[in-house]
C-alpha cells in the first residue's frame, strides 16, 4: 500500500513538475516576445521622435540662414535702388561699417574688380571666391575659410546688385562662422544634438554645434566621423542616404548604429550654399531615457507578477498535497486507533495475497475480551483509551511488516506477512501476556482489572490462499478460543468455528 501510495505520489508530483515547467516555458516565451515588441516600439518611437526633432532643428537652421541671406538681399536691393554709378564711393562709405553680425562688406563689379581690403583680396584669390560669387542666384554662400582679419573661421555671402543702369555686380558680406554656431545652439538637448555643414561631394564636415568643445567650428570628414564605425547591417542604408544627398534631394532621414550607439541623422538642403547640406544628428538614447524607465518598470512588474503567480501555484499545490494526505489518511486509517480501517485492510491484504510467491503469511483475528465491561464500568473515554493502547501494542508486537486493522468495535485483524505458524504463535503469546499490562485509565488501585485478548489464527497457504476464506478460518479459530475461556490463542483446524 505504501509502495503504491509512493508511486502515486511520485506520479502526481511529476505531473505538477511538468505543469510548472510548461508554465515557465510559456511565460519565458511570452516575456521574450513582449520584450522584443517593446524594444521594437521603442526603436520606432525614438526614430520618429528624433527624426522630427532633427527636421525641426534643420528647419530652424535653414530659416536662420535664410534670414541672413535675406538681409544681404535687402541690403543689395537697397543699394540697387540708389542707382549707383560704380562702387568707389559707396565702398568708401561702407567699408568701415560694422554690422551687428557681419565683419566686413565689399563689392565686385562686372569687370570682376573687387572692392575689399588687402587681406580680403588675398582671400578672394586664395579661396577662389569669385566662383562662389558667380553662383549667386540671387544669393550664394562660400564654404568656411580662416579670415586674415579675425583669425577665425568665416564665410562670405554674395548677393546680386545692379548698378549703372543694368550692370550686374555683387555685394559681399563676411560673417564669422560663430554666427551659424549661435543659430545652431539649442538649450534643449544641447549636449546631444550635433549640427554639421556637410559637402555632398567631398564629404567634408564642419561642426556647428555639439558637446565636443574642440570639434565645434572645426573641419572633419564624414568618411571618418559617420561612416568608419557604422555597423555593417546599416551600411547600405547609409549609402542610400548619401546617394539621396548627392542626387540633390531636399532631405532624408537615416537611423543607424555606430558601435553601441544608435543615431538618427537627417540632412536638409541649404538652397544658397551650393553643394552643402545641413546635417543634424541625435543619439537615440537622448529620447530613450523616458522609454527606458518605462521598459524597466514593465520588466520589473512583469517579473514580479510571474514570480508571485509561480509562488501561488506552488503554495496551492503544497496545500492540495497536504489536504490530500489528510484525506488519504482518513480514508486509510481508523481515526481513533490510527491503525488501518477495514476497507483499507481488505484492499491491502487482497493485493498482498494476489502476488504470486508473496502470499506466505498468517491471518489472526483478535478480540479484546469483555470490552463492553470496560465501557460500562469505566466509561467510554476509558474504553477508547484501552483501544488506543491495545492498537499501539499490536503495532509494537507485530511490527511494520504486518497489516493491522481495527475490524470492528473491539475486534482487530492482523495479517503477518511472510510469517509461519511458529513465528505467529510467538507473537500471539507475547500479545496475550502484554495485554495484561493494559488497564483502564480511571481504574482504582484496588481494582485489579486488566485487559486480556483472544487470538485466532489461520495460515496461508496451508489453510487457504483466499482472503475471505482465510479471514473466515481465523474467525473460526477465534470462536474456539473464546469457547475455551478467552485470554489465549488458537489455530484453525477442521471442524473449528460455529
Amino acid at each position: 500500500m505504501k509502495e503504491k501510495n509512493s508511486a502515486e505520489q511520485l506520479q502526481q508530483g511529476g505531473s505538477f513538475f511538468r505543469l510548472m515547467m510548461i508554465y515557465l516555458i510559456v511565460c519565458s516565451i511570452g516575456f521574450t516576445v513582449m520584450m522584443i515588441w517593446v524594444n521594437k516600439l521603442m526603436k520606432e518611437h525614438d526614430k520618429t521622435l528624433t527624426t522630427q526633432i532633427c527636421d525641426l532643428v534643420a528647419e530652424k537652421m535653414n530659416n536662420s540662414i535664410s534670414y541672413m541671406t535675406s538681409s544681404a538681399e535687402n541690403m543689395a536691393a537697397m543699394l540697387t535702388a540708389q542707382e549707383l554709378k560704380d562702387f568707389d564711393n559707396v565702398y568708401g562709405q561702407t567699408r568701415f561699417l560694422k554690422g551687428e553680425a557681419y565683419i566686413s562688406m565689399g563689392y565686385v563689379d562686372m569687370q570682376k574688380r573687387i572692392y575689399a581690403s588687402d587681406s580680403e583680396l588675398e582671400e578672394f584669390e586664395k579661396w577662389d571666391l569669385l566662383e562662389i560669387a558667380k553662383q549667386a542666384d540671387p544669393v550664394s554662400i562660400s564654404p568656411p575659410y580662416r579670415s586674415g582679419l579675425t583669425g577665425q573661421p568665416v564665410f562670405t555671402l554674395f548677393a546680386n546688385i545692379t548698378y549703372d543702369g543694368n550692370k550686374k555686380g555683387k555685394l559681399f558680406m563676411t560673417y564669422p562662422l560663430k554666427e551659424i554656431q549661435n543659430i545652431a545652439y539649442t538649450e534643449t538637448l544641447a549636449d546631444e544634438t550635433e549640427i554639421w555643414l556637410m559637402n555632398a561631394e567631398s564629404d567634408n564636415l564642419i561642426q556647428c554645434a555639439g558637446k565636443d568643445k574642440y570639434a565645434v567650428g572645426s573641419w572633419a570628414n564624414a568618411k571618418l566621423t559617420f561612416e568608419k564605425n557604422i555597423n555593417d547591417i546599416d551600411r547600405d542604408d547609409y549609402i542610400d542616404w548619401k546617394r539621396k544627398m548627392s542626387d540633390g534631394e531636399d532631405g532624408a532621414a537615416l537611423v543607424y548604429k555606430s558601435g553601441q550607439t544608435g543615431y538618427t541623422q537627417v540632412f536638409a538642403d541649404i538652397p544658397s550654399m551650393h553643394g552643402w547640406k545641413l546635417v543634424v544628428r541625435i543619439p537615440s538614447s537622448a529620447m530613450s531615457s523616458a522609454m527606458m524607465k518605462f521598459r524597466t518598470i514593465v520588466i520589473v512588474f512583469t517579473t514580479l507578477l510571474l514570480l508571485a503567480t509561480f509562488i501561488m501555484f506552488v503554495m496551492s499545490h503544497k496545500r492540495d498535497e497536504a489536504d490530500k494526505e489528510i484525506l488519504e489518511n482518513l480514508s486509510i486509517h481508523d481515526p481513533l486507533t490510527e491503525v488501518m480501517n477495514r476497507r483499507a485492510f481488505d484492499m491491502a491484504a487482497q493485493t498482498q495475497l494476489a502476488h504470486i510467491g508473496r502470499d506466505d503469511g498468517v491471518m489472526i483475528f483478535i478480540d479484546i475480551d469483555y470490552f463492553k465491561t470496560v465501557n460500562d464500568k469505566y466509561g467510554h473515554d476509558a474504553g477508547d483509551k484501552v483501544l488506543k493502547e491495545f492498537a499501539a501494542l499490536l503495532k509494537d508486537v507485530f511490527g511494520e511488516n504486518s497489516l493491522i486493522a481495527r475490524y470492528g468495535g473491539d475486534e482487530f485483524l492482523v495479517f503477518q506477512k511472510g510469517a509461519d505458524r511458529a513465528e505467529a504463535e510467538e507473537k500471539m503469546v507475547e500479545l496475550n501476556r502484554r495485554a495484561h499490562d493494559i488497564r483502564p485509565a480511571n481504574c482504582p488501585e484496588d481494582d485489579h482489572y486488566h485487559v486480556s485478548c483472544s487470538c485466532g489464527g489461520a495460515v496461508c497457504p496451508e489453510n487457504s490462499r483466499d482472503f475471505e476464506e482465510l479471514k473466515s478460518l481465523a474467525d473460526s479459530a477465534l470462536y474456539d478460543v473464546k469457547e475455551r475461556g478467552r485470554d489465549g490463542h488458537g489455530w484453525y483446524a477442521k471442524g473449528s468455528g460455529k
Partner: protein
Amino acid sequence: MKRLVAAVLCLNITAGLTGCQQPQKKPAVEPAPPFKAVGDTVSGRKDIYLIVKNLGSSYWQVIIDGAEDAAEEFGCNMYYSGSNAESDWRSQERLLDEAVEAGADAVLLAPNDAVELAPKIDEVHDAGVKVVLIDTTANTENYDICYMTDNLMAGQLAAKEMLKQLKNSGNSLAEPLKVGIQVGAQTSLSINERLAGFLQYWTRNAPKDWVIIPDIKCNDGDYEKAVTCAAELFDEDPDIKGVFGTNNGSGKGFAKEIKKRGLNDVVLVSFDYSPEVAELIQSDEYTASTILQRQYHMVHTGVETALALTAGKHFNEKFVDTGVVVVNRNNMQTAEIQEILSHS
C-alpha cells in the same frame, strides 16, 4: 593568542602581496622647466618669452633655433620653455603666469589646447602683454596676431601636387584610378583641415574616374600602426596609384611600405620631412613629394612682429598664413628648398 598572531601575520602577508600586485602607475609627464635664456640677455632690451608645445620634438627645436636667430638679428632678449608633452597645457598656463610676473613685453605661444588656454591668453593680453600665437590658434580673439600654416590651403596644395604627379607618371585621365589616404590622430585640427583641403580640391579638379578610397586609414599618431595601415591599404587595393599622408607619421608609414614592396608606380604625397620620405623623393625609382611647413619663418616673423607691437605698431590682420612649400625631386636641390630644409 596563537590565533591572533596568525591572523596578524596573514593580514600582513596579504597587504604585502596586494602592494606588490598594484598596477604600475603611468609615468607622469614632467612639468615644464623654468624659462631659459637663449643667446645674450642685455638690460634695456625687450624681453620676449617663447612657449612651445613639446621640448622633445625636432619640429619645435627648429622653432627655438629660429627664435634664437631672430633675437640676435632684431636685438631682443629671448627666453624659452615649453611642455614635455602636447597633452600638457597646464604647464603652458603656468609659464604664461611666470612670463607676466617676470615682466615680459611679449609672449610667443604655441598653445597645446586652443580651448583650455583661451582664458589665460585673455588674461595675459588684458594685462598689457603682447601675445603672438604661432603654429596654432586659440579659441579667443584676445591676442595680437597668429602666424600659422593654413592647413586647409596646405591640403589643397597636396591634392594639386598629387594630381600633377599622377598625370606626370603617365596615368590616363580616362582610366579609373584609386588614391588612398591615411591620417594621424582624428582629433588633430591641423590634420582634419589638411584632409578637408585635399578632398575639397580633389572633388573639384580630379578626373571623374579618379577616386578616393572610402576607407580612410587612421593610425592615431602611432608609427607602427601607420606602417600597418599602409600595408592594409596596399593589400586591399593592389592597383592603388596614389597615397596621401596627412602628417609626418602617416607619410613615413607609406614610405616604408612603398620601399619594402618596390611600388615604384605609386605616387606618395606627405607632410613635413623625414629621412624615409626624403629617400623616396631623391630616388629616381620612386615618385614622392612632401609639403613642408615654414616653422622657422613662422617664429622669425613672430619675433619681428612682437617687437613691432611693443613699439606701438598696429597690424590689421589677426592671422597670417606662413604658407608651405611643396618639395619633390624637381626642386629638392634648389637653394630655396635647401635653405628651408636646413631648418627642418
